[in-house]
């Protein structure tokens, strides 16, 4: 029994299972002429094509669409209208169905993709019902509720439903290939990053709307074609049957039940869902029973099996395999390897201003968080930004990094005005930032996290492999530099808070930024790690890297930063070398308080 369970973890076994299933699927109609089961498989294939597609935007990207049956309807109507109004064989129009579905997804994407979370769900529901209303009311084109009857198939009856069957098999294969390819390219890592943390994704150079639109179009194109074939197969295309929200639910269920984010899960889910569908239609008479079963199944799956079958089984097998082994993440800190990097760049004479902030203002519902802050960061410095809690430090970071847009004022970086640019454009310009609370992409491995950043945007780059040779070598060098090389394959969510901070720093270095913004690099981590963090920062700075650091650990700031900017009540009240800051009465008054006693600065090693 135990041996059998061990074998279950072997990838070759599963490759074998998939191969056998594929052969069985292809051979079935030739070997058996049972039309009942052929019909079931044909419907399963339509569900599977929908589920594999939906998985791209929902499983990888984290955006749920309740409107997937809109693409079935669009495809079916495209084929139905084209064959009845223009003529030709319905199969000829199937590619056009894909194009129409893709265009509609892109259009919807343009509106929806700048929204977050539930606004997207709302838009997809609205789109589905609007299309249904159009199909009902635009009589001259769609024949209203009477529907369209496509011509009957003209092939020999001996071939049964083979043309439907095999064209859907081909579409399913194409969907799987697309899903597989996306997961292995920059589009896939970008979508995963969006699912894990969309704001953060934008700050490391991911142009989030473009990724989401690509993901949504990918989820629609083959489903549109399948819809065309489906309408032809049913021989009746009407608004109720085609734009059916229950089909949307079934497609979602297939993805969740099989396992979102996995390649094969949606296919498994689809065949299971169609079996249930057939049972509820044949045995229970469809209608209310079908609604009850699928509504109930959706509720139960989300409550009891939210991860789905394939991920649950995989987790169980991994737990088994790991039993008795100590976790790597609990290990002592690994040694760090210095970057044998560039020689120290001599600072330009006179020192060049890299970042300039002029009269920055930002209010939150009347509260002025930043009120006319102005300061500069010179190239090659480690500039510290200190100030009491609520003085606007993190808001300033958000305004520089682009997570927020200022109400007034300007931000200039490297000779360019950047305050209206999106976060990813600022990342391309050379700004990298960390967050106060670490925001690694928990569901991705450490190595995937480090290679996720993009230094520029190009369509060609999207096709590049997610973890290509040169990039991965560079990422591994950076992980060695922060002392996290052994953790490359670990899921980032397994790391400790301090380890995440080091991984975030390596991730940032991947951008090759000119300026690094660190928000409390020493916050909430143990003294050994604080020392390591200081070493890493100092070493990078010696190679010419500029930093702007928000930090509350005064000994660290005084030992590491020069100059130091002091922010109070949203304004920059003074700036100078650590020694000057310590003596400045305004700083003592605004920040340290009268009874403040100086601690010894952390000495440079």
């Amino acid at each position, binding site marked *: 029994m135990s041996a059998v369970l061990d074998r279950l973890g072997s990838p070759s076994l599963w490759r074998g299972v998939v191969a056998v299933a594929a052969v069985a699927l292809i051979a079935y109609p030739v070997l058996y002429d049972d039309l009942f089961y052929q019909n079931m498989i044909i419907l399963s294939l339509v569900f599977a094509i929908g589920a594999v597609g939906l998985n791209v935007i929902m499983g990888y990207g*984290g955006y*749920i669409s*309740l409107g997937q049956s809109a693409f079935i309807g669009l495809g079916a109507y495209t084929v139905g209208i084209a064959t009845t109004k223009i003529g030709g064989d319905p199969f000829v129009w199937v590619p056009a169905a894909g194009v129409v579905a893709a265009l509609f997804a892109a259009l919807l994407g343009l*509106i*929806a993709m*700048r*929204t*977050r*979370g*539930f*606004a997207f*769900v*709302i*838009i997809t*529901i*609205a*789109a589905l*019902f*609007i299309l249904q*209303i*159009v199909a*009902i*009311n635009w009589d001259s084109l769609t024949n209203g509720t009477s529907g369209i009857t496509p011509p009957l198939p003209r092939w020999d009856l001996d071939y049964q439903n083979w043309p439907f069957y095999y064209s859907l098999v081909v579409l399913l294969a194409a969907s799987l290939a697309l899903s597989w390819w996306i997961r292995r390219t920059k589009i896939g890592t970008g979508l995963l990053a969006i699912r894990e943390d969309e704001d953060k994704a934008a700050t490391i150079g991911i142009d989030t*709307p473009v990724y989401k639109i690509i993901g949504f179009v990918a989820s629609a194109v083959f489903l549109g074609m399948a819809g065309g074939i489906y309408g032809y197969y049913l021989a009746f295309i009407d608004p109720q049957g085609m734009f059916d*929200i*229950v089909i949307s*639910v079934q497609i*979602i269920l297939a993805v*969740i039940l099989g396992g979102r984010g996995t390649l094969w899960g949606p296919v498994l889910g689809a065949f299971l869902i169609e079996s249930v569908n057939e049972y509820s239609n044949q045995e229970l008479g469809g*209608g*209310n*029973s079908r*609604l*009850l079963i*699928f*509504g*109930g*199944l*959706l*509720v139960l799956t*989300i*409550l009891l099996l*939210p991860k789905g079958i394939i991920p649950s089984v995989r987790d169980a097998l991994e737990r088994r395999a790991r039993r008795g082994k100590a976790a790597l993440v609990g290990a002592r800190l690994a040694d760090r390897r210095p970057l044998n990097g560039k020689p120290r760049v001599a600072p330009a004479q006179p020192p060049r201003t890299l970042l300039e902030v002029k009269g920055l203002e930002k209010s939150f519902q009347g509260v002025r968080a930043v009120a006319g802050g102005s300061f500069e960061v010179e190239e090659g410095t480690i500039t510290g930004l200190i100030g009491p809690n609520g003085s606007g430090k993190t808001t300033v970071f*958000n305004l520089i990094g682009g*997570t*927020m*847009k200022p109400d007034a004022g300007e931000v200039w970086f490297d000779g360019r005005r950047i305050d209206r640019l*999106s976060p990813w454009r600022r990342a391309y310009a050379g700004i990298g930032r960390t967050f106060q609370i670490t925001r690694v992409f928990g569901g991705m491995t450490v190595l995937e996290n480090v290679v996720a950043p993009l230094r520029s945007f190009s369509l060609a780059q999207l096709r590049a492999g997610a973890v290509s040779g040169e990039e991965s070598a560079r990422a591994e060098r950076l992980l060695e530099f922060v002392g996290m090389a052994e953790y490359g394959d670990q899921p980032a969510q397994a790391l400790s808070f301090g380890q995440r901070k080091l991984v975030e720093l390596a991730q940032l270095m991947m951008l090759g930024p000119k300026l690094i913004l660190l928000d409390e690099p020493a916050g909430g981590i143990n003294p050994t790690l604080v020392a390591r963090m200081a070493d890493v920062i100092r070493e990078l700075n010696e190679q010419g890297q500029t930093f702007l650091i928000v930090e509350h650990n005064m000994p660290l700031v005084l030992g590491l930063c020069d100059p130091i900017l002091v922010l109070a009540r949203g304004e920059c009240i003074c700036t100078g070398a650590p020694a000057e800051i310590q003596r400045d009465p305004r700083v003592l008054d605004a920040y340290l308080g009268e009874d403040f006693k100086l601690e010894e600065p952390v000495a440079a090693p």
Partner: protein
Amino acid sequence: MAAGASRGHHDSGSRHHKRMTEFIQQTAFGLLIGGVYALFASGLTLIFGVMKVINIAHGALLILGAFLTFTLWEQLGIDPLAAILITTPAMFALGWVLYMTMVRPLRSAPLSSTVLLTFGLALVLEAVMGLVWGNNSRSARPSYFDQSFDVAGIVLPKAQVFAFAIAILVLTLLFLFLARTWTGRAIRAASANTQGAALVGVDIARVSVLTFAVGVATVGAAGSMVSVLYPFLPGSHYIWIARVLSIIVLGGLGSLQGAAIGAVLLGLAEVYTQTYVSTEWATAVPYVLIFVVLFFRPQGLMGTRLREDVAV
């Protein structure tokens, strides 16, 4: 010649007068139905405020309230609007049970999970109503069903006037409850900052279940009104989902005032479309509003952001 011109003038004047009367008439209809919409949407926005759950089953719960009212009226002869006194506590209890069995286990799950869960619940409710009451269109018809008040040539159907008055009354009670009672203040505190409220001693678990139950109770009350105002069947809940979603998109989430304004705007948009465009396309109004608002005013009319790229 002169007489002809004068008659022409007279005709256009009366046409103009007729158009004005019709416009005022439709505006009155829109405002009356807007009051009921406001009550309908208040429960959803209340629930979202405290637990950040978009309850897609809201429309199905409304139809359930309507069916319960219909049965009370048909079987026992209870006036549909008076039935509110029965449907509201019954739906409050149902809300309590639904929260404990379904929503509570998903407290920390992402918003998308609860959207799917409540959508599943909506389908279950639709199916159950279909099995119990059948899939035929129903409508409660009390004695005043086809009577109306006539105010200066403007027709105000009694059912709509009564429903509007009760909706305003219930909304006022809800508002006073939130503003004046300790529990109400706890709900508002939890809505503004859940963790902060917990820290100062608000029992979030209790507040959550109470809010959910109150939200479902208000939609039960709205359901009683709908049983008189519209013919309904189990599948009607989709159009009500569309309406509530467009109301919150218009008015912003989590604010009762916003929901009220969104509700009135939707009511007006629907009656104007019905009168001046076509009845068929009136069903598309909520969906079109969703698109238009998200495209042009992503922050909603009352400030709550739905699109995150603008003015973070």
